[in-house]
């Protein structure tokens, strides 16, 4: 099947500095792709290059087999939901949503019918005559989405559409957006710096770092097999311990080994607090890397305990079903699947 979007070797410059380097991306029809990354990684720039707002220095962008690398924004057919929503304050909700249809030469009655249909779809019934200033943040966001969906774009571009909303509204909208995308079969590219948002929404995630793709794949693949320490850290593996690789494995300070495909030498072990366990000293450990440590602080965030453990001069966090006494000796277990090991030379 023809792909909805192809990005081939795209480079973008801002003045003298190159902010995107050799980006390749293919999006299938009805696929939901998230561009994830820290601020300044180039994810929004890539989206704006696809929309035609920033010029491409090198490479090619195609939509449904049509080359749009140098086409003006209005000739690209994609629709964008802006981070600031960018609703037109002088137009009513209905006129905002109907704008693209009017430009496409639709008759008034047909536009009105389509607007009503979209208002119902987005649970904005009866708000067509309001001005954007009279709506709540969540409602504005849905109007912006309605405006983009109205033209049935081959490609929907979402630029951090939920970053201006409070946590609860965001949660609801996230699920609504996913349901809507499935229901309508929309092809979408979603820019976000929120890992959870990217994981819940996307079929595939592109993690960008300093203008290059750090890793690409389905959410589960990025989660369980991060390609670099940077990706692991970005996906929540914020604990780090220094280990030694030798003979195709790394060993825990107090026993246990995990096979790795690394040359002998110093290595970095990264793991997530919620995937590690705290064991009492003396208990026979299950498979995994074991480290001796001292419980420094115990907190109860709900559901279980979170223990700050000091081990080999570093402090790490681990979840625990039981509460060790502060200052007591404990063992930290990192199960094989939770241990992400990288060569110390890699950044």
């Amino acid at each position, binding site marked *: 099947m023809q792909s909805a979007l192809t990005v081939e070797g795209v480079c973008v410059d801002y003045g003298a500095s190159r902010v995107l380097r050799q980006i390749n991306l293919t999006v299938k029809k009805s696929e939901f792709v998230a561009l994830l990354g820290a601020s300044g990684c180039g994810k929004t720039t890539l989206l704006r290059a696809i*929309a*035609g*707002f920033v010029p491409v220095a090198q490479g090619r962008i195609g939509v449904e087999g049509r080359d749009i690398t140098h086409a*003006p*924004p*209005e000739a*690209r*057919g*994609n*629709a*964008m939901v*802006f981070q*600031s929503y*960018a*609703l*037109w*304050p*002088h137009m009513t909700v209905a006129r905002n949503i109907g*704008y*693209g249809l009017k*430009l*496409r030469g639709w008759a008034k009655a047909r536009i009105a019918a389509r607007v009503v249909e979209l208002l119902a779809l987005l649970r904005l019934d009866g708000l067509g005559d309001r001005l954007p200033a009279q709506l709540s943040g969540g409602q504005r966001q849905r109007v912006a989405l309605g*405006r983009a969906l109205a*033209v049935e774009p081959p490609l929907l571009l979402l630029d951090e559409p939920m970053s201006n909303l409070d946590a609860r509204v965001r949660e609801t909208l996230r699920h609504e957006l996913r349901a809507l995308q499935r229901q309508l079969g929309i092809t979408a590219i979603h820019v976000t710096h929120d890992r959870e948002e990217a994981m819940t929404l996307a079929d595939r995630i592109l993690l960008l770092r300093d203008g290059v793709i750090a890793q690409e794949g389905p959410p589960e693949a990025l989660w369980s097999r991060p390609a670099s320490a940077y990706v692991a850290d970005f996906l929540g593996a914020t604990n780090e311990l220094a280990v030694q690789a030798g003979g195709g494995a790394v060993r825990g300070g107090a026993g246990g080994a995990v096979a790795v495909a690394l040359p002998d030498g110093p290595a970095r072990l990264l793991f997530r607090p919620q995937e590690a366990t705290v064991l009492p000293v003396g208990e026979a450990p299950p498979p995994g890397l074991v480290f001796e440590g001292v419980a420094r602080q115990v907190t109860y965030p709900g559901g279980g305990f979170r223990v700050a453990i000091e081990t080999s001069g570093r402090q790490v966090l681990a979840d625990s079903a039981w509460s060790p006494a502060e200052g007591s000796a404990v063992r930290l277990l990192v199960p094989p699947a939770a241990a992400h090991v990288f060569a110390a030379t890699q950044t």
Partner: protein
Amino acid sequence: MSAWRWLPRILLLVLFAGFIFGPVANLLLWSVAESWYWPNRLPSQYGFRYWERVFRPEGQAMESLGLSIWIAALATLACMAVAIPAAWALARARLPMRGLILLLFLLPQAFPNMPVYINIARVFFSLGLNGTVLGVVLVHAAHGLVYAVWIAAAAFAAVEDDAVLAARNMGAGALTAFRTVTLPLAAPGIAASAIFVFLESLDEFTASFFVGAPDVRTLPLLLYSAAAGGNMQVAAITALILLVPSIVFMAVVQRFLRADVLAGVGK
């Protein structure tokens, strides 16, 4: 105790009020004074005889007012026709040397008015524009350009980039996006700048005097000759008439102009 705190404020307010309303009160008094001779503090006889004379069909005041409004309207049109594209280019297209160009528009204001207008009058005389409505309109439009460009540029700059990009993204060409999004959003600021140009033209004196007089008699010129001729009553009434559009438009500007547009002037 509290009286001591309030007293200076009240005195200050009265002083300000005196500065603002004192001259207007004096004008009002003169306009209804049928006879007022030195050393009397107040007129000895009141009446509306001079009002009647000014508003008589054969009186020149109404004709001058009409002419002034006509010139102001034309000057505003001419000025905005240049100012809107110029302001848009300055605010939205990333022009090199933007600051320099903005300064250039300000430059005519930096020189003393007199020599500038005397020179304009000389040039206009050789072009046959002296003493014509067109000549006065042109010189008023040039004079208003600085306000128009600066205020309109601030209005255009206050339009969010994303709002315009959203229109392009939805399928609008550059011109359609300008017509449906940029212009309506900048309209309040542009209207305000047009009103400033109109008011500036309405009570502009120096340029009208050198370029227009004596053939084109705008209201300020009539006021001048009335006052110079010692007819304080006619001068006062003319001045009061000139006050009306100013007050009306100022009220309109207040409603129209958002504080953030004004704050962006010159940015």
